[in-house]
């Protein structure tokens, strides 16, 4: 119900037309974009391809707001539709899964474009190696990483070395590895899965988040499958199967890890309370863990930020 600036800048949504279920959007405008992106943005620039909402507020109100949402979208040339029955659309998408969509004018018809046919990592992830902060080094494989992952690690006193998804880890020294979130179908990224397989053998701490979770799981030898109802909201309940503690998490994924195919050296860590799908795995001996949800939140509840603490505590 909150968090449209974060969602619109989340690289995981690259190539997608986003439908928001909460009908009132634009209420608090958009804060001023500055060179170093602030906590309100998850990357520089809007990543979605189109926005569909029910009720748009061009008249915003917030002390921190600079522009109405529509002006910001104009800047990035992103089309938006309002006055749409988004609940009906939600039900359609729920029953049929994500589908191709287009926003066109009667006078200017366009073709469908399928974003799954291209390598989306190329489009959204860093092409250069970038470093943030000071301390022990976390090698961050950027598949379309949300800024708040970087912020969470740097604020805990570590250095983040953000590298492209096809980076050769042998080129550098590092203390731990993080596979980030990102858009698309995990099965498309064999090379990264192979990289992950190799890194697992190093025995260094690894954390996977969302797409990164699926990469780690595939590397571990498990399989993924397309879900009937994807998880796309900020209120996904998960349970830690080791201690029955429950958390509300932010999620955005349409594929899940099949735990039946999980090799015996691994344990199920988290599970979705609603549909019992896998939400995280953890290695029985090695310091390797990955979660389907977003511990960095943004938008969404920050209940699971402790995942970062847990991961970083494994660094020797």
């Amino acid at each position: 119900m909150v968090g449209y600036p974060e969602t619109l800048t989340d690289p995981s949504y690259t190539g997608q037309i986003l439908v928001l279920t909460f009908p009132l959007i634009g209420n608090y405008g958009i804060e001023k974009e500055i060179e170093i992106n602030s906590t309100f943005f998850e990357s520089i620039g809007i990543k979605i391809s189109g926005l569909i909402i029910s009720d748009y507020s061009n008249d915003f109100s917030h002390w921190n707001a600079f522009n109405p949402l529509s002006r910001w979208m104009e800047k990035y040339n992103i089309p938006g539709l309002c006055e749409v029955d988004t609940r009906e659309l939600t039900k359609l998408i729920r029953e049929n899964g994500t589908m191709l969509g287009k926003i066109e004018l009667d006078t200017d018809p366009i073709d469908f474009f399928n974003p799954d046919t291209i390598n989306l990592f190329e489009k959204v992830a860093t092409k250069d190696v970038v470093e943030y902060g000071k301390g022990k080094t976390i090698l961050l494989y950027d598949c379309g990483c949300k800024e708040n992952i970087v912020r969470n690690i740097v604020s805990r006193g570590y250095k983040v070395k953000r590298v492209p998804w096809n980076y050769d880890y042998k080129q550098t020294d590092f203390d731990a590895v993080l596979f980030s979130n990102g858009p698309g179908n995990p099965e498309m990224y064999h090379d990264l899965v192979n990289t992950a397989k190799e890194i697992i053998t190093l025995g260094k701490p690894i954390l996977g988040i969302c797409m990164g979770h699926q990469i780690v799981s595939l590397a571990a030898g498990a399989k993924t499958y397309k879900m009937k109802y994807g998880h796309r909201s900020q209120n996904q309940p998960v349970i830690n199967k080791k201690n029955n503690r429950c958390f509300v998490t932010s999620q955005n994924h349409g594929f899940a890890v099949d735990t039946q195919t999980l090799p015996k050296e691994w344990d199920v860590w988290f599970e979705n309370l609603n549909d019992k799908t896998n939400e995280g795995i953890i290695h029985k001996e090695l310091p390797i863990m990955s979660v389907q949800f977003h511990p960095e939140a943004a938008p969404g509840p920050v209940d699971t930020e402790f995942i970062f603490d847990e991961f970083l505590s494994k660094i020797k």
Partner: protein
Amino acid sequence: MTNKPKKILILGSSALKIGEAGEFDYSGSQAIKALKEEGIYTVLINPNIATIQTSEYLADKVYLLPVNVEFVTKIIQKEKPDAILISFGGQTALNCGMELHEKGILNKYNVKILGSPIKTVIDTEDREKFKKNLDSINVKVAKSKAVTSIQDAIKTSEELGFPVLIRIAFALGGLGSGVCRNKNEVEKLASKALSYTSQILVEEYLEGWKEIEYEVVRDKYDNCITVCNMENFDPMGIHTGESIVVAPSQTLTNHEYHKLREIAIKVIRHFGIIGECNIQYALDKNSDDYRVIEVNARLSRSSALASKATGYPLAFVAAKLAIGYGLYELKNNVTKTTPAFFEPALDYCVIKIPRWDLKKFRNVSKRIGSSMKSVGEVMAIGRKFEEALQKAVRMLDIGANGVVCNDKKFQFDDIELFLKEPGEERLFVIAQAFENGYSVEQIHELTNINKWFLHKIKNIVNHKRLLEIDQRVTKDSLLHAKKLGFSDLQIAKAINKNEEDIRQIRVYENIHPSALQIDTLAAEYPAKTNYLYLTYNASHDDLSKDDKLNPIIILGSGPYRIGSSVEFDWCCVNAGRFLRKYGEKSVMINCNPETVSTDYDEFDFLFFEELTLETVEEIYRKLNARGVIISMGGQVPNNLAVPLNKRGITILGTSPDKIDLAENRSKFSSLLDKLNIEQPEWSVLSTVEEALRFANSIGYPVLVRPSYVLSGAAMGVASNDQELITFLQKAVELSKEFPTVISKFLENAKELEFDGVASNGKIVKYAISEHVENAGVHSGDATLVLPPQRTYLETIRQIKKTSEKIAEALSINGPFNIQFIAKQNNVKVIECNLRASRSFPFVSKTIKDNFIETAVKIILDKPFDTSETSLFEYDYVAVKAPEFSFTRLEGADPTTGVEMASTGEVACFGDDFNEAFLKALISVGYKFPIKSVLISSGTIESKAELLETSRILTKLGIKFYATPGTAKFMINNNITVEKVNWPSQKKKPNVIDLIKSKGVDLVINIPKSFQEDELTNDYMVRRLAVDYKIPLITNRQLAMRLAEALEKYDDDFLQVKSWEEYTEIRSPNSELESI
């Protein structure tokens, strides 16, 4: 689950009062349902007989007894429960629970407090402890200091800097709190506040900050969720109970939302709350700075609202958590498949608006602020803010058609002042300001209301202007108007047409609302839920063909107000249960979040919607309904009978033309004449001259009132020409639109209520209750006795015969109520309502014969049985007493009269009248024994009549203080009395000092006339008594009956017997048990 308690005591919230209303019937009922499901034996203590929770099919045992330490202790001794729930009955139950703990009673009898530990409750309730606790975890609270003297209050205020807020610890609804802008105001407020409590709080006043609330749930495994957050439309400084509230918050960013959510969870973990709690914040409008205002470690008004707003059954879940469940072990009751550990996603917006009845009270301030004065609330759901807002305004049932397009009653002269000093009319004032050219910025400067909200109101005003300029509607402008929440009538007003014209255009253009589900997950998962609302901001319907099973619609009662409250909710819920029992599909339409009737599990479908002609018709047609029951929800649905019928909608029960016959004063009067039934002489008046002539012809005093009224709005009694002229000048607005009626006011007469159910004009069930007070006290404020104790047999016979004649003449088919006045066996009819009345739950529960069940059977044409129990066969007596909320209504004159003033009621049973009467009085706050009384006995007749009462009280050793006239009279009659001077005499000993020092236990003050508008000495005495929480009696008969009852009173006189112990002989099994 292991170690579940076997027997649990549940404390209710007693009578409805300002700050503690129907929401606790909802939470208590849910708790009982949750525990019953576990096979736990439940014992409920609540004297509020009109509630659903005191129904025979809920708690295993019900004690209609005061929720205080003395009675609860005795019940604990008798019932030996192993646990107690104190967080489902509002502040009343919580305070009682804390006192039981402090006195060591719970320890002594080994009764465990379920849910949050007692330490948590104390740490959150005691302001100093609260602050220390939050300081220790680095959570910000408003800077404040607890003080115990006026001097310290002033000193602290100066330290903090003005303005400051003065608050009382342990107060419900912000009682006695207020903003002080200078030393004088602190002195005034502090002295009053310190009379309630030894400790008050002086706090920094966060003027203009946003006010935000979160509803948080935690289980014993430390799993936490926030079910809902809410944002107040009104800025800090206006009590949340007085604020328009929006869910979810609308102007918070993700960062702010989750920052506050994280703090909420941190705080709740720190305090160790188990179950549900509410946390209130102030959030700076110019930064992300915040303060925690308070934490309520119990179910609250906000939690009821959050439950209804999200579909998450907070009270039910809280009860399960209290007996040890984890959140993940419980199911989401809406989806039935997913667990209760989740945070609802809303795909709509919810608005709550409070309802006030301030115009009913003389001298009360009409401004709203930091203490609560509203008596009820409505909740509206929409997919645009504007849509929800306009729906909510109509739901209030205050005569407004929406935010705009209202008659001149909603136009104000001094806009600027009303913007600066908000009152209940503020929404209309803002709309008017926009019409007069004010900008959003200007209004924001004056009101501190967030600009986003103001922009939305401006959108409504702008569209109205557009319609006005066009003077016609196109399909587009009509659809846009509907999307912004305009009703057909509003559109009609804007373009000078009538409602029917617009409806026809709308139907022609096929513009109808969609019915959408409240499914807790914003359609992300399939949900089979029957909880629905209507919106024009959708193009599909969530109802399927299978849902159109010719159901029967029951119309609820709308917002609680003075005169229509939980008693009608009891009727509606019962009607729904019996419909389902007889295999009918039931649909409830209601818009009041403080009710059980808006629990979606009570009906086959719940529409949280407006009770207006337009909306009811849309739902009726959408569901292809069989008919509408309008006789259960009080006057609101009753008024819809004729208009609905005109649109071809089937009204079940008594026919609408007969309802009109009973409601229309002249038609009804002619009918009575035809039947040879007596009525007080009356006439319709249109000018003052006519009125004076008529009044003189029948003789004073006379009663003046408009037709179609409930609870005596705008009624008054005049004793002479001058009073009549004054009153008519006040009511002149009314006489133009409605005929105003003058009737003979009978003095020293008895009033009686006839509640009955008839089938095709034959009475099949009835009960006659008698008023303790003589005629002149509104029936809603009267103390009722069943069976009658002081009425002649002949009077009863005449009442029955008259009722039979009326029932036959009106072919009554369902519930009805007739009010009678009787003097020396001469019986006259005052009023007849062809619907269930306020006293239906009271009579049904007293004689243990559910009148609603029979009414439903008759409406459905099912066989029924008739009661032939004589009124004299009962071994017990029940007394229903009113609860007044005068303490909260600053300045209001605490008297009873023809205008109803009470906000709630209780009823208690006893072996005789005296026992039941004293129990009922204790339930509404009286304390016995009494050692001293201050008496002002009114007119000379009244003084004479109260002589015997004074003698009885003297005999009981009670010390008398009296005001000069009364003192003189009593001394002349050999009664020992100490004279005290009137406030205006400014001489010692003075009444003011006596009351302020709490030197008396009871004040008897009998008004000298029916209308006392000025700030007389008597008014000051009454007001002081209320402000200093000393029980007050302003009615002669009440004073007499009390003295007689006190003669019998001793420790063992008030027996601790459950409802079942009194009535079980009469009705061994309840028919609803099986549902």
